[in-house]
């Protein structure tokens, strides 16, 4: 049968790898052959299923940072200034000992906020901003089913200036979470949602809503119903607060 020769090349056709003349002939055949068009459709669905299933593993933010630090260009050092570095190291050591107690009390929260800022920046720099692209919360929310061990609600954005761009999986402190990306006046805002008990925030910062000060972005975070939310971006503090309030309205 004629179709048998087409079927043998169906995958190559769908991979876009047939010679252009053969691609055109295949196009014509598929459009006129119900059997081959059905086969082509199911193979396309299968390719898509493999693509989605194949994007399974995500590196941790900590591992990414480790590699990033190692591949980043390092400033060249002059050997003749070596003794100055030795002296500076001694000063740093002394200052470190004196201030270690103070720093130790701050590092827990600072590290989490810093990692949230890193996740936000790395995502914006990524070639694929989101894994699920949709402005519809009813599409984005179900996408997380089976990927994260909790459920959360997304706010209705009608009559607001915010628009949902999509979502992606993220990890913080070895814990899976949801990363949603919103747009407001060309500014991207990230909303992160994690299980609160999985994050190591210092006492006194676990339950309250507050705005971290030592982060180079505007950020707001709060905890409710066992979930910890972070809203971060370079949009104005008012915009960050507005989006946070929309989330608080549904949580």
């Amino acid at each position, binding site marked *: 049968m004629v179709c*048998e020769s087409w*079927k*043998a*090349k*169906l*995958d*190559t056709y769908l*991979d876009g*790898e047939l010679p252009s003349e053969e691609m055109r002939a295949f196009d014509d055949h598929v459009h006129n052959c119900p059997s081959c068009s059905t*086969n082509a459709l*199911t*193979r396309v*669905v*299968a*390719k898509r*299923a*493999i*693509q*989605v*299933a*194949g*994007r*399974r*593993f*995500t*590196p941790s933010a900590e*591992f*990414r940072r*480790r*590699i*990033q630090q*190692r*591949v*980043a*260009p*390092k400033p060249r050092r002059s050997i003749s200034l070596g003794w100055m570095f030795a002296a500076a190291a001694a000063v740093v050591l002394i200052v470190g000992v004196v201030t270690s107690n103070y720093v130790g009390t701050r590092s827990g929260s600072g590290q989490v906020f810093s990692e949230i800022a890193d996740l936000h920046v790395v995502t914006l*720099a*990524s*070639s*694929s901003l989101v894994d699920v692209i949709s402005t519809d919360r009813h599409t984005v929310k179900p996408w997380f089913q*089976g990927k994260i061990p909790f459920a959360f609600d997304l706010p209705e954005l009608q009559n607001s200036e915010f628009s949902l761009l999509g979502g992606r999986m993220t990890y913080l402190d070895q814990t899976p979470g949801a990363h949603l990306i919103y747009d407001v006046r060309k500014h991207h805002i990230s909303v992160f949602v994690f299980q609160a008990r999985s994050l190591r925030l210092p006492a006194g910062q676990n339950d309250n809503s507050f705005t971290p000060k030592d982060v180079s972005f505007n950020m707001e975070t709060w905890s409710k119903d066992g979930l910890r939310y972070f809203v971060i971006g370079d949009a104005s503090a008012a915009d960050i607060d507005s989006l946070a309030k929309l989330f608080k309205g549904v949580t």
Partner: protein
Amino acid sequence: MYLTRFDAQPDSFEELAMPLFDQLYNFAHWLTRNREEAEDLVQETYAKALKGFSSFQVGTNFRAWMYRILRNTFLTSRTGLNATMTLSLDSEEEEPELPGDGETPETILMERSNLQLVQGTIDELPAHFREVLLLCDVEEMSYQEIADTLSIPIGTVMSRLSRARKTLRDGLRLQFQKG
């Protein structure tokens, strides 16, 4: 092997290599089936690539170059050596492309959209089938890129891909019948 220091520092390496980080890690994890081994593999890949970046020919395919380093590093690891022992000794180049099956378990996917079922079946594929399928359908590499990455002829890419897909379909059908 753990590397703690990278020597060469070309300015553009980071710009070229870091956008590939997520997909390289994903591929490494599929190959090693283990998070720690995947991290070691990616770390070693970046170390080797950075060190050899001066030998990378500008204008050639950087992505295929990175994947080739990762895959060659994997093949020399203990896990990689074990995986390649399962490689079929059939002469793949001489195998014709396999025709499609009459039954299409893709319809199962359409109806059930079972992510874990597909992941589990991909995971059960032999390493040389798994990698060619992932490079084609997940990384969306052209046959030429896959050939460059795996250092095999395009004809072998096509026949191996065809066999990988057939094995996947058979596996899905089997899972479906069990379920």
